Structures are given as C-alpha cells and as structure tokens.
C-alpha cells in the first residue's frame, strides 16, 4: 500500500483559489468544490477543474477546491501547479 500523498497550490486570498490534491487509495477521482460565486459560476469552475484533472492522468485522488473568485486562468494555473507538485511526491 502506497503512502498518503498530498499537494497544495494557491491561497485563500481574494481572486485566488486553494487547490488540495490527496491520494485516496482507490482508483476513482472525486472533487469537492466550494466557491464564493458558486451560484453564478459553479458549473464553469467545475468544468475547468475536471478538464485539468482529466488531462493530468491522475487516478485515485480527491481534489478539494476553495475558490475565492478566481478567474479561469488562475484556476488552470493553480490546478496545474497542484498536479505537478502531487506528481513530484508520488
């Protein structure tokens, strides 16, 4: 059984987003999203997260996302950074 791996990118400051990726030990991925603009942009934010996760090739991870009003380019950047940091630790 592999050790638990976790990686973080971003902040909880305004206009930013905090992404945490943790290993679950299973094979499926899960995403937990909270956002200050969830009612207006929740589906769009979720779509960007899903695209980044799919492109990463990761499996068996839980992605926890706390959004503070990040633009799409920031969401992508933070996701990519968290994914790269996670892969470095694998």
């Amino acid at each position: 059984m592999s050790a638990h791996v976790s990686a973080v990118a971003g902040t909880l400051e305004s206009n930013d987003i905090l992404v945490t990726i943790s290993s679950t030990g299973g094979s499926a991925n899960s995403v937990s999203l909270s956002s200050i603009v969830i009612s207006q942009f929740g589906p769009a934010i979720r779509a960007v997260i899903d695209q980044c996760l799919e492109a990463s090739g990761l499996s068996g991870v839980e992605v926890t996302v706390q959004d503070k009003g990040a633009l799409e380019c920031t969401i992508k950047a933070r996701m990519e950074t968290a994914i790269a940091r996670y892969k470095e630790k694998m």
Partner: protein
Amino acid sequence: MRNRTFLFMPGNNPGMLASAQCLGADVVIFDLEDAVARQEKDAARNLVSHALKELRPQGVGITVRINGLDTPFWQADMEAVVEARTNFVMVPKMERAEEVQQVAEAIEAARRKFGVQEKVEALVIVETPMGLENVYAIASASPLLRGILLGAEDFTAAMGAQRTAEGAEIAYARSRLLTACKAAGVLAIDTPFPFVSDLEGLEKDAAFAVQLGFDGKAVISPHHVHRVNRAFVPAPEKINWAKRVMAAARLAEAEGKGAVSLDGMMIDLPIIKRAERILLLADV
C-alpha cells in the same frame, strides 16, 4: 509603445495580475524574482503564463522579470514567458556582456521551440558594482537588448551606502548607466523610488530622472504611476517650442537650406533632437 513607467507587480498575486491594464503604467513587470518566495516559484510561473495567454492585458507593454542566471529557475521561466508572448524578458543582476548574449540566445531558442513569431526583447537590470563597471559592454552586447534598468537597492547595499530620498549615493551610478545606454542606443530606465509614502520625494526624484535624460522610470507602487507619468510629460510651452522647431526644420529641408533660425536661434541637429525628444515624451 511609451516607456515612461515600468510598474513592478508580484507574479503570484492573481488579483494584481488581473488589474495590470487599469493602473496607468506604460509597461507592467510581472515579477517572478524577489516578489516570489522560493517554494512558490513554480506557482508564480504557471500563473503568469496563464494570465498572459488568456487574460492578455491590453494597451500596456508586458515584461516578466525572471529569476537570475545564477538560479535553477531561469530557464523554465524563460521558456514559459516567451511561449506566453511577453514583449520583454527582464533579467536581473547582469554583470557581463556574455550574460546578455546568453539571454538573447535563450530567447531565440524559446521562440523557435514554441513557434513564436512576435519579437521578444530583453531588458536587464544592472545592480552590482561589477555590472556598473561593465555597463557599456552590457548595453551593446546584443541587438535584442532594449534597455537597462538601474537597480539601486541592491547596488547601494553592495556598496555599503545608505539609500536616501535625495539619491546622492547613486549619482555616479545613474550618470554612468545613462551615458552607456545613450552611447549604445538602448533605453535607460531609472531605479524605483523606494520610499512608498513620500510622494513629494517621488516627484522630485522623477523630475530629476527626466532632467538627466532617462527614458523611463520603474515604480513599485500603483500610487506612484501617475506622478511619474506626469513628470515625463513636457510643459505646454516646451511642446509648442518643439513643434515650431520641427516645422522650421521641415521648411528648411523643403527649401534645400542647410540651416534655419527660429526666434534668433540657429536650428541645428542637437536642437532638432531635443525637440524630437520633447514631442516623443509628449506623445504628439
């Protein structure tokens, strides 16, 4: 593109990156170096890259200050920002002409790698005693070099000097860097004024930079931008004089005269160059 103000912005702050085009600076500098902690270099590089690709600030020149050639970060920084089509790559702590050539080769290699058609030029910072000693060689090292910024904080620290609002401790550095840049035909960019809340001192410092002949000045606070921009705009009477000089010069040329006078003063090449600079600064 005008070059009066070069505004430093931290490269890992999404809110500030998004506001880049609204702050009035002619050029913004997204900083991957001093403003970013070592463990956040990757995050800042990714953020700046995505911001440039997807949020392209309009009406403003884009520079990214990458990490120095003596760090393990600079090559990844260079590739990311050239791919994202920055206008300029700014490289700190230049000390020798060979380093400028290394930077120029890296820019061109990155352009080839990512098929970037747009021109990407280099701005470098001279901020050490050795860099100042070699500043003309640095200024004339590559056609890709667009300008040099004097980094007075590191420079005065290395000299053991005290940094003051009056700036006597950087008088020689300013003059030497300025002369080298003018001789080499590249932009001379003055150091930022570091005392953020001293706006009167800022205005005096900016006016002095203009008097010396600097082409622009770096700023570290959005509150400084409009004051420095204003310092670089010539007075209306100077603009009017410059327009009349250029009109007289054009008339002389049309009539095949070698020289012409205006208000009893001979209009020769130095006068025309001064008038051109005034009109350039006035954006007329």
